[in-house]
């Protein structure tokens, strides 16, 4: 297993998964058991948004694995990378709106149509951009489909339009690392996001575990948008940091375990809401104890968030720990 293998494995999820999510979403608009289908489609979008992250990150390692092979064009790789950056942006926005809509639908809040229409709009664009990423990726090393050797001449009409919006990976990386003040600012925002997440989710988890039992749980759940905002902030600053210094993070065990911890947190959130743990605690009033399974989910949530902080902190000390043998 090398980075190229990992990248080729993972890419199926954001490219095909988003089509599945969009399909479910469109069917849900047609009627019938609309609520369940719509919720399922939103969950798919959030899951794909999460998996898109290690997919994107593994691209740098994949590039490292193949760039010296005969017939591999650097410019085709860059075109693919630029397409991936644009697609990732729309993927994460789709995931964010989906998550917000899922949060709203847990309470008695009537979901406002505008969030759902944004989900529809952004998911449509995402599916299109993911097709572009897949195509440009295939062009790199699928000689059997008769791909272009030079990115400049062979772009389709649509491709030429889209490519205007695709950033140049090299220029973007330079931009991110040009000023140490910008880097410091991004890292500062990363800590602000951390604080928002730990504060709000931490309090909810601690209450479920039995601390400060005088507080009813439903109001604590209302703090979650701040956690989503904090996580969003960290996702943005994190991806920007990676685009600035891809190789530094790619060959670092702490970075990959951190991403794994974040994916596990995605599973944890899914477990909390889909297994009924949430409904078993949301009505708890002052003094009332949460059931054991809910406590387990809360404890693992706290553990995983502190694991994310730990692994993030150790990125610096674990640099160059993944050694690729040529």
């Amino acid at each position: 297993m090398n980075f190229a293998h990992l990248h080729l494995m993972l890419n199926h999820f954001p490219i095909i998964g988003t089509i599945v999510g969009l399909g479910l979403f469109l069917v849900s608009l047609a009627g019938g058991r609309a609520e369940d289908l719509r919720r399922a489609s939103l969950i798919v979008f959030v899951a794909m948004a999460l998996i898109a992250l290690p997919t994107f990150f593994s691209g740098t390692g994949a590039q490292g694995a193949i760039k010296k092979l005969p017939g591999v064009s650097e410019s085709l790789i860059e075109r693919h990378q630029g397409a991936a950056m644009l697609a990732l942006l729309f993927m994460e926005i789709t995931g964010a709106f989906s998550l917000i809509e899922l949060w709203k639908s847990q309470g008695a809040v009537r979901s406002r149509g505008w969030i759902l229409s944004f989900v529809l709009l952004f998911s449509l664009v995402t599916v299109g951009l993911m097709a572009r990423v897949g195509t440009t990726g295939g062009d790199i090393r699928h000689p059997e489909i008769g791909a272009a050797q030079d990115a400049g001449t062979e772009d389709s009409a649509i491709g030429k339009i889209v490519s205007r919006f695709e950033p140049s990976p090299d220029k973007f990386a330079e931009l991110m690392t040009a000023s140490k003040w910008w880097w410091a600012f991004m890292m500062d925002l990363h800590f602000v996001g951390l604080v928002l997440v730990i504060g709000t989710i931490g309090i909810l988890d601690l209450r479920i575990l039995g601390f400060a039992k005088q507080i009813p749980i439903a109001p604590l759940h209302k703090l979650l948008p701040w956690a989503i905002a904090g996580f969003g902030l960290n996702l943005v600053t994190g991806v920007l940091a990676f685009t600035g210094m891809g190789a530094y993070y790619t060959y670092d065990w702490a970075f990959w375990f951190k991403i794994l911890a974040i994916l596990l947190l995605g599973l944890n959130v899914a477990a909390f809401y889909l297994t009924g743990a949430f409904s078993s605690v949301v009505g708890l009033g002052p003094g009332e104890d949460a059931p054991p399974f809910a406590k387990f989910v809360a404890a693992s949530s706290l553990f995983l968030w502190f694991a994310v902080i730990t692994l993030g902190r150790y990125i610096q000390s674990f640099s160059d720990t993944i050694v690729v043998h040529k």
Partner: protein
Amino acid sequence: MGPPAFLQAIENTGFSTWLRESESPFAFYFILLFHTFGLALLVGANVVVDLRLLGVARAIPLAPLKQFFRIMWIGFAMNAITGVLLVIAYPTKSLTNRNFYFKLTVIALAVSVMHKLKTRVFGDASLSEAEMTARGAALAKWSLFLWFGAIAAGRLLAYTYKYLTYPS
């Protein structure tokens, strides 16, 4: 005239050298990690109390939030201890950096606001929530502002130092 000689004296001690140069995962990065944990506890808990005082999630009863001050003090203690260890590891880097003194000042102010919140707002059990909010809203705003300032100043330390170790 260079930095004061006592900084070099601290740096040359066995403990300081071990903290700085040891490959053990329990050296510098471990201490830095617990500094981050302390920050997460201290500012995390503070932010929730501040947000509530400013009207976010009004259904959360104010009085029980008093218990979170214990978490804040645990976080502060963690950071005071790890902070001292970090200064011992890199005395020249920290003590010749103007930004470091700015950070300590902001923290002192933030802690005094925290203390005021605890005594004036949460200290009197007979106060109604409306009274607590009236007393606490302005303090909450300052608290948020000061803690985020402390985080920013702390983060900038890695980018604003003049000497990493005592110049030879």
